[in-house]
């Protein structure tokens, strides 16, 4: 009985299992550990996922989507050719892909999973992730917070007692901060905080803006393909900047008349507003846990975006020490999910390990604001579960009716830290009927239960009648109903997928096509003929010839890529 650990990322995803007392990362069909979180549809109407789709982002931008994790828990739809998909459905396609790879690797059927989510994901987003797992045919045994998962990997090998680690997780789309303490096999999360709209992709977006500005271009004058092309070039430039001081972006668009030089200083200056936002969650976490920077024995970096030198030097300045990140920041979360999977499997290697996590935000309800005579402020937020309470937890509060002869009480469910509900996130509401009585006479008891997955359950009891309304959050504006899920299930069932065994050649072709799109003049023609030849070869279906042809084309593509990339 294997449980699959999955890191479902904004930019890349990865999976791992607990095997022989350690976390074992699973390579995908192209023998890579990271699968890009990109989904597309090809000309035959077949769904492509991962590397192939990533190449196709440039050659077929209208039939390919990426960065959809940011839309988890919203109704936003992405169009892939003629069809439209929600973020949940797209995530399900990624998960399904990972599941197949894992089944292929282990040789057994896998239908249970532990999936990681950003610590600061709210209830709706967590539920959406769980639903994506179910759509992919995986029973989600646990949702684990990404920084917590990373902490488990570091904590497992940590021998010193009572040490505190600060985990900074800057992924493609989200930033999380977690303070965790290790003692006697216990990994205790003290506090978590984060920013759901800050990640590596934002830095690239800034770069794109700057690049267009420097070249006097307007984003609206570019075709979608050109936009994607520029985006991917500048993304590569950003990566290259981690290793050196300057990067020259050669002429890569028809409209661009000269090469553009990017230095670390320019990047740093440009990224300043984003780097500023990194500070608040860190300070908040320290404040909440009552720790001072000198109490922390290690600052650990997680997530691909922490490779940015700019980020590293900022963290060094903030904590007066070099951060550590000796485990691959892209893969550590997936490894952590595998440890959690091992715990779930009750693996004997993990007998001594216990993990306790916290709820990173306050959850509560709205109550009448007596000071609010002009209807300016709205209801006051009454916290029921305070932020950074250890989970699982269950608390209740009793509230009374606010009006004479009130018939219905509407219990709003909010998440956030502001005094006024209007500044907090509305998660949903529950309405209960109460007997008519003068105001303040009828009372209801609201119980919030927050489980280890970070999912909230709300019970409302009317004290006089004993009526209980028990629901996981309902009426939430953005969550999916059972009906929606069924519809999605059907939709996904009707999709066609690539046969696995042809994927390597397809990936090669997709890569060649991407290079074709982004090249100019002679090279473009050359690539065009190369693609044609390979397609002819594929149609002939002589395996030996295809193999030789593939090797040849791969070598050519490698040399071309080396040449064009700075």
């Amino acid at each position, binding site marked *: 009985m294997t449980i699959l650990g999955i890191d479902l990322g904004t930019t890349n995803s990865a999976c791992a299992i607990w095997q022989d007392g350690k976390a074992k990362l699973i390579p995908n069909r192209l023998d890579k550990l990271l699968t890009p979180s990109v989904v597309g549809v090809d000309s035959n109407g077949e769904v492509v996922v991962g590397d192939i789709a990533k190449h196709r982002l440039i050659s077929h931008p209208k039939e390919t989507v990426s960065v959809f994790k940011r839309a988890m828990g919203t109704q936003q739809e992405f169009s892939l050719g003629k069809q439209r998909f929600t973020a949940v459905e797209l995530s399900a396609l990624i998960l399904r892909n990972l599941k197949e790879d894992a089944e292929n690797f282990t040789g057994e059927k896998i239908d249970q999973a532990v999936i990681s989510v950003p610590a600061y994901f709210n209830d709706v987003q967590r539920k959406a992730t769980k639903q994506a797992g179910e759509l992919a045919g995986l029973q989600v045994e*646990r949702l684990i917070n990404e920084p917590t998962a990373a902490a488990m990997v570091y904590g497992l090998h940590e021998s010193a*007692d*009572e040490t505190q680690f600060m985990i900074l997780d800057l992924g493609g789309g989200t930033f999380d901060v977690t303070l965790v303490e290790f*003692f*006697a*096999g*216990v990994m205790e999360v003290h506090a978590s905080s984060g920013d759901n709209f800050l990640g590596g992709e934002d830095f690239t977006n800034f770069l794109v803006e700057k690049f267009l500005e420097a070249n006097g271009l307007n984003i609206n004058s570019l075709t979608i393909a050109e936009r994607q092309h520029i985006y991917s070039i500048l993304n590569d430039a950003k990566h290259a900047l981690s290793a050196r001081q300057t990067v020259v972006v050669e002429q890569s668009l028809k409209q661009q008349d000269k090469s553009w030089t990017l230095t670390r200083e320019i990047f740093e200056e440009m990224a300043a507003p984003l780097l500023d936002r990194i*500070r*608040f969650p*860190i*300070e*908040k976490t*320290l*404040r909440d846990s009552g720790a*001072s*920077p*000198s109490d922390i024995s290690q600052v650990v970096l997680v997530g691909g975006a922490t490779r940015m030198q700019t980020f590293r030097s*900022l963290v*060094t*300045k*903030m*904590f*007066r*020490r*070099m951060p550590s990140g000796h485990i691959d920041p892209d893969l550590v979360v997936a490894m952590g999910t595998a440890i959690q999977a091992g715990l779930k499997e009750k693996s004997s290697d993990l*007998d*001594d390990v*216990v*993990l*306790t996590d916290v709820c990173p935000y306050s959850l509560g309800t*709205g109550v009448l604001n007596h000071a609010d*005579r*002009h*209807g*300016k402020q*709205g*209801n006051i937020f009454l916290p029921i579960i305070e932020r950074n309470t*250890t*989970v*699982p*937890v*269950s608390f209740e509060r009793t509230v009374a009716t606010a009006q004479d002869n009130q018939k219905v009480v509407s219990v*709003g469910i909010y998440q956030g*830290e*502001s*005094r*006024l*509900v*209007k*500044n907090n996130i*509305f998660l949903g509401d529950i309405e209960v009927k109460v007997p008519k009585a003068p105001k303040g006479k009828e009372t209801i008891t609201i119980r919030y239960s927050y*489980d*280890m997955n970070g999912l909230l359950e709300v019970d409302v009891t009317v004290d006089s009648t004993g009526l209980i309304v028990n629901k996981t959050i309902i009426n939430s*504006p953005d969550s999916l109903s059972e009906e929606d899920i069924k519809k999605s299930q059907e939709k996904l069932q009707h999709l066609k997928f690539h046969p696995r065994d042809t994927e390597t050649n397809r990936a090669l072709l997709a890569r060649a096509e991407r290079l074709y799109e982004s090249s100019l003049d002679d090279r473009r023609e050359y690539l065009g003929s190369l693609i044609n030849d390979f397609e002819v070869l594929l149609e002939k279906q002589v395996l030996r010839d295809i193999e030789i042809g593939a090797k040849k084309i791969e070598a050519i593509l490698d040399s071309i890529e080396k040449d064009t990339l700075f």
Partner: protein
Amino acid sequence: MNCWKTLGIMPTGDASLIKKAYASLLKVHRPDEDPAGFSKLNHAYKQCLQLSKQQHYSDEKIDHIEEASKGDLLSDSRSSIDQLDYDDQDESNQDKQEENHSSITVSSQKNNLVKTTDTELLKSSTPEGEDSIKLGHIGDDEDTIFSEDSLEKAKESLIQLTESAINKMLKTDKPDDWQFITSYEELYDIHFRIGYSDYVFQQILALFHDNKIKPKARQSSLLYLDNIFGWSDQEKKYEEEYGYENIYSIFDILIDGQNNQETPIKWSVEPRHKGPIEQAGYYKRIFANMIDIILYVIVSSSLLNGDNIGDHFISLIGFFLIMNAMMEASPMQGSLGKVLFGIKVTTYKGRRLNILHALLRQLIYCISTLSFKITVWVNLFLNDGRLLHDRISRSIAIKR
């Protein structure tokens, strides 16, 4: 049951003993297998840690008192910023004598504050465990990025610049005066930053307190600084330190200021109003109504020739009945005036009115406004914001 018993240990001030006991019991009451048992255990653990800290704390206090009696309360590592501050002031008093008067008034005001040692504001200057004010504290780490020297230097110049910014703040409200903060690299250092942030907050609080300045009058500076230091997030901390009555007026500004940055009107068409339902203000509604009336009068006078007031009146009623009802039932969910003022009309449950409901609402509105002048007065005294015609037609005018 006593928390020590739950953990199965004797009361102790040693946190690591508590942790060990907790860790061994935790393996029996795992959070995912025995949530109830875990909850109890975790609660006891937190309680014991708290108690042990208090004991620890009281020990420390005794140390302090001993230290105090030796007379080196403000020894190096604990040197509070206030102390430095006062030294500096003495110097600056001499230095700046020929400068403007305002600086002198501030300084002397501050010295007043120093004398009134029992005011809440001064709590932070007493040495009891206020380590947040250990500006420039250096850890014993080898990897220090900013040397002690550079932090020390930065501290000195920051204090000077802060002084002058505070002096300027006495007269004006210019966020630019604080711009120097962004040029200090040393403020990346969290420890240094927190210390400085607390220092600036304290200085501003003292300024407001001594000169009876209303925080509202320095709103833009406050918001600028809040943007840098994230004060609005630290209400609790400052409340504990300075007391609610001293800080609430500042935090009202900071928290309201954040709201004002939101876009006022949402244009989305939702089947049901999202978020909390908030009544629209009475005066906003009157203005919205006036705009409607003016608009309709202009239109009707261009359509009708002749000055018969009665004709205009009837056409006005017609406009209200037809136009307003249609607009309220449309995705606009309100007449032009209402839309301009960010008001929309919905049912009690936040749904859009259908056309008949909207027509009924307008009819009741016309009758109640025209037939009895008294309704105007009744409406004024209906203090929950729901006017007479809202009540009768079972609808509600809310913020978009």
